[in-house]
């Protein structure tokens, strides 16, 4: 048994949470530093994993090429009346699909902790929930067992509900419950599919055939018994229905049109760090879920529905951008821009090509860092002015030059300017999209996104930062050192990956190639 790094990286926040539990009330700074330490350890572990990661191992379909694997029997219930023995594994591992998400998750959590510094209300409770959220997110990205994945997926809801519902804005209750119920609504679809898959497939453990939640076993056609409801041999449409169910469950999280309306509400009400986590990491769980679960388990359906996935991607791109254009609330505008940018991920996934899927995963990562910056940017003025109305500002550039410099980098990264990371991922999505005959037309339409994206971003830049300065805000100060500290690492990553994208692409290349080959050829 090697060093259990994935267990550590997942549960370090839980340790931090427990430590905070023992701190006395009023020791707010101790609480903050404990949380910061926990997320810092997590980040260091993530960086160690990046260095230890073997580029040549594909993962995806082969348990032996996953890395940092840990596997143990979690739950065993022998001889349940007609089911037989139920076994659930604690099975975690990482491959090219998830390694960047693991790093992103740790990185954004760390930045969000820094940004949580000025949370003043019930500090102890806040950071405990925050760390629980962090652990759950990490768990989702490392799970290789569907049941375990689902557990983490659901755990994540609970802290999120309270974090929005208690520390949020004026309509926090509405936003929190909407988020909770909407995701739960999706979870039920996932749960149903999960159970159906469980009963349809088996794996052989010590010579005994047992039903399984093992995500890798589930990708093998041979794992399904001919009579199973989701067996590929089954001539009915159950696999299609299961796929759509699963897809709806994940699509709500992305969020994909028309399931997206919880997002603007949640963002507008959530405190800044929670928005950062929400947009930076949580949304990726949706697309990651599709890539990790839907795609390899149902490759034949994926091929069949690829055009529709791309179509929804393009709708997200265009619709999100157009609605963003009409927003008057800065944060809501950024929320809709997230919807637009997640559309590129869907479009890239739909291409089923190496360039497209690489672009999609890379876009997930880049959107994580860029959107984190964007929400932090909103947070900076909201902290000072307690309003986010785009039309209430103007001419901040002269008053806050450093801040405006950061804003310019982040906005142009969101626009997809070359030299910044967003350009590479968007371009790869377009290259893959145009290269695939299935998504060619969709890609041409999707190109409109780069125009509309520039339109709402530059217009916002002008309205808030350029033009005449509104004397009402003359008390506003430029960035504090702490704020500066949260922006700089993000900006460095955004610029560095824009100039050296190979660094990120090498991590996923082997996995993506194996994945794409499987998706296009798997006979199910």
């Amino acid at each position, binding site marked *: 048994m090697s060093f259990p790094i994935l267990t550590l990286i997942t549960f370090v926040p839980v340790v931090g949470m427990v430590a905070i539990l023992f701190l006395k009330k009023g020791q707010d700074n101790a609480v903050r530093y404990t949380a910061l330490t926990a997320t810092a350890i997590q980040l260091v572990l993530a960086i160690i994993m990046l260095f230890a990661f073997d580029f040549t191992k594909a993962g995806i379909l082969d348990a032996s090429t996953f890395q940092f694997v840990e596997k143990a029997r979690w739950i065993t219930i022998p001889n349940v009346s007609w089911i037989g023995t139920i076994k659930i594994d604690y099975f975690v591992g990482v491959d090219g699909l998830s390694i960047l998400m693991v790093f992103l998750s740790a990185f954004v959590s760390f930045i969000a902790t820094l940004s949580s510094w000025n949370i003043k209300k019930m500090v102890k409770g806040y950071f405990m929930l925050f760390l629980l959220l962090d652990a759950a997110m990490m768990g989702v990205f490392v799970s290789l067992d569907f049941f375990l994945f689902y557990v983490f997926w659901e755990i994540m809801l609970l802290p999120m509900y309270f974090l929005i519902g208690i520390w949020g804005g004026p309509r926090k209750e509405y936003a929190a419950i*909407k988020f909770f*119920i909407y995701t739960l609504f999706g979870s039920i679809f996932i749960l149903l599919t999960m159970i159906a898959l469980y009963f349809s497939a088996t794996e052989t453990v010590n010579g005994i055939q047992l039903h399984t939640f093992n995500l890798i076993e589930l990708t093998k056609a041979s794992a399904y018994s001919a009579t199973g409801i989701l067996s590929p041999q089954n001539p009915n449409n159950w696999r299609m229905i299961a796929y759509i169910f699963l897809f709806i469950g994940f699509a709500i999280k992305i969020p994909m049109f028309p399931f997206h309306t919880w997002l603007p509400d949640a963002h507008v009400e959530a405190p800044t760090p929670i928005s950062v986590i929400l947009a930076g990491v949580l949304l990726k769980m949706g697309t990651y879920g599709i890539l990790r679960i839907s795609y390899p388990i149902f490759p034949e359906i994926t091929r069949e529905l690829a055009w529709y996935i791309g179509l929804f991607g393009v709708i997200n791109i265009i619709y999100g951008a157009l609605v963003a254009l009409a927003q008057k609330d800065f944060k809501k505008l950024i929320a809709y821009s997230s919807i637009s940018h997640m559309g590129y991920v869907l479009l890239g996934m739909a291409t089923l090509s190496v360039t497209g899927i690489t672009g999609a995963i890379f876009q997930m990562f880049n959107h994580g860092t860029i959107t984190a910056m964007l929400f932090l940017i909103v947070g900076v003025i909201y902290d000072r002015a307690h309003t986010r109305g785009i039309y209430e500002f103007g001419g901040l550039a002269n008053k806050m030059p450093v801040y405006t410099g950061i804003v310019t980098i982040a906005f142009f990264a969101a626009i997809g300017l070359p030299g910044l990371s967003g350009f590479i991922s968007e371009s790869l999505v377009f290259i893959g999209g145009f290269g695939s005959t299935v998504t060619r037309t969709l*890609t041409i339409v999707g190109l409109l996104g780069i125009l509309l994206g520039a339109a709402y971003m530059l217009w916002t830049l002008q309205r808030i930062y350029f033009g005449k*300065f509104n004397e009402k805000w003359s008390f506003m100060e430029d960035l504090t050192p702490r704020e500066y500290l949260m922006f700089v690492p993000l900006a460095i990553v955004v610029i560095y990956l824009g100039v050296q994208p190979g660094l990120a692409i090498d991590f996923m290349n082997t996995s993506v190639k194996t994945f794409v080959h499987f998706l296009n050829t798997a006979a199910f």
Partner: protein
Amino acid sequence: MPGSNLITLSLIILFLPLIGFITVLLFGKRFSKLYNFEIGILSANLLLTLYVAYEKLFVFANQKIAMDATWFSFGNIPGIGQLNIDLGIELTNITVMMLFVVNLISFLVHIYSTEYMKGDSRFSRYYSYLGIFTFSMLGIVLTDNFLMLYIFWELVGLSSYLLIGFWYEKDSAANAGKKAFLVNRVGDMGMWLGILILFTNYHTFKFDTIFAQIGLGNIPFGSEAWLTAAGILLFMGAVGKSAQFPLHVWLPDAMEGPTPVSALIHAATMVAAGVYMLTKIFVILSADALTVIALVGAFTSFLAASIAITQNDIKKVLAYSTVSQLGYMVMAVGVGAYTFAFFHLVTHAFFKALLFLGSGSVIHAMHHEQDMRQMGGLRKKMPITYYTFLTATLAISGIPLFSGFLSKDGLLAGTYAFGLLTGHWTVAIFGFVVAFMTAFYMFRLVIMTFHGEPRNKEKYDHAHETPKAMTIPLITLAVLSIWIWYTPNPFNPEAGWFYNKMEVKTTVVPQDMRFNFMKTEAPEHETAEAEKTTAETHETVESEQVEGTTRVMHSEMYEHAMHEAHLPTMIWSILLAGLGILFAYIIYQWKKISADELAKKWPWLYKFSLNKWYVDEFYDKTFIGGTLEFSRWLSIFDNKVVDGIVNGAATLTRGVSAVSGWFDTYVVDGLVNFTAFFSGVLGFGLKKIQNGKVQSYVLVVVLSLILLFVMFLPFF
């Protein structure tokens, strides 16, 4: 490898301004003299460029010097093969000439700005922006592939955005910057799509590889339509950057930027990038694509000239004049005279930069007055500015002994020859009419600004010749607007070194997609295979031709037509330019005819020109207004319908749960109460929960599941 040190030097030339940008941006505030560093970088760049250009043109003239490096790689992809994303630079003769033009004008603008921008609160910020602009522009010049072209294309867009909006406190400046970026993005979308077509087919971005593939008859998706489409889409990028109709609207607004910036970016270099790119991709443009390009260019040059005639803002006149001259260059590419397009690009870069810097000198002297109706008589006050300005005006009007005559005459001859060869005279007619208009509006400008009596005495009295830092660049550029630097014979550009150093490229599009006059004259019996070998070896053939005396760029038919066109073109163009100058003198100098009278006589025509053909108004009402209106409508739709359904489902669930609660209390529970008291307690408990929200939502989940089940029933 021969000339590898030239590659190293080119890379240094490319990256030095970037270093300048970063340094001055980060530390410019702390060290107020740091802008000198940026100027030093440009001086170094200029010297290095002179060396590189000399070496390339006179030592390695026949060799293409190029270098590629893998940026990132996908390794071996089944079905595609090795997929590397390469970046690289190449030095051709045209490249190094352009390199010189960019560095020289950038250098002069750096010097000029020390005076012009003196006292600006963001002085060093300004210099750092000039640095990133120079870097981006040099990237476009040096690239040997479409990806890098697009990358630097966008970066140029960024620097242009930053510099136009440099005085962002002014709404008009902020607006103009945004408009420039967005209008350019429209073109870039098309260009990117064109690049995607090529990449999808050839799995590379490299110019040479793609051109060679097309030369082998391997056209995109095996379809002639796609090849033409690729050409026109790539051209869209040029339509944006080089401000061609219908995307020309951003350039006049871009005059909101500081005037030296207008000279550098919006007159001499960035806007020429579109034309430069067309000279690179010329070989893959089919006859249909070329026709589109020629017509767009010709129409743009006419449209802009017709507007320039009535403008009163000195910079607006120059801006429309730039659009018009860019139209000329684009038109020249379209009719196949792409060498003259590039020639004109270079001569225009110098004299137009001179015109802008001269106008900057006037504006500086007049304390930021740009309205020509407030000027007049400045000749006496500002002799250096006047005489250099006049030189440039003579050059742009196409008067012999000046550089503009050489290139303009050449490209007009190209349109004339095109008319002779294809019977398509539209382009030529536009070209000659515009020659007349150009001379007219330029002399109108000179007369209104420098001649006659001062119209605003107070401003006139304060005016003075500008300092040396501003006049030396003017003089330098004026000297470069004389013919002698390009050819010994002021009436024959083809006799000069400049024309003969430009590479001659043979089109690689399939024979049946070329203009007749571009078809290779192969004997009838030669097979297609032989054609392929010619195409394969065209690179070496081409480099041999450079130094040679016989230029076989096109067929003999074309050479013949060009020869035939030479004399009539010269006569016509001199005549028309002279006529334009004469009219300008009659109306504005001698006032024999009143301009106001003319305007009153044809008010409709006058207003149409003054208001720029109402193109902006049209766009505002349709595309911009439409998009904004649509987005507002979508936002309401999102709020009321999409979210309405979600909230409606929640309300419905609450309603259902209320009803079931009522049912529970009064029917079920009532029944139970009726039968047993103990059940009443249970009912009481349930009643309490009835307002709980979570349960009600779970109910909607169940209901929705049933609904979905019914929906998907057909699949069973």
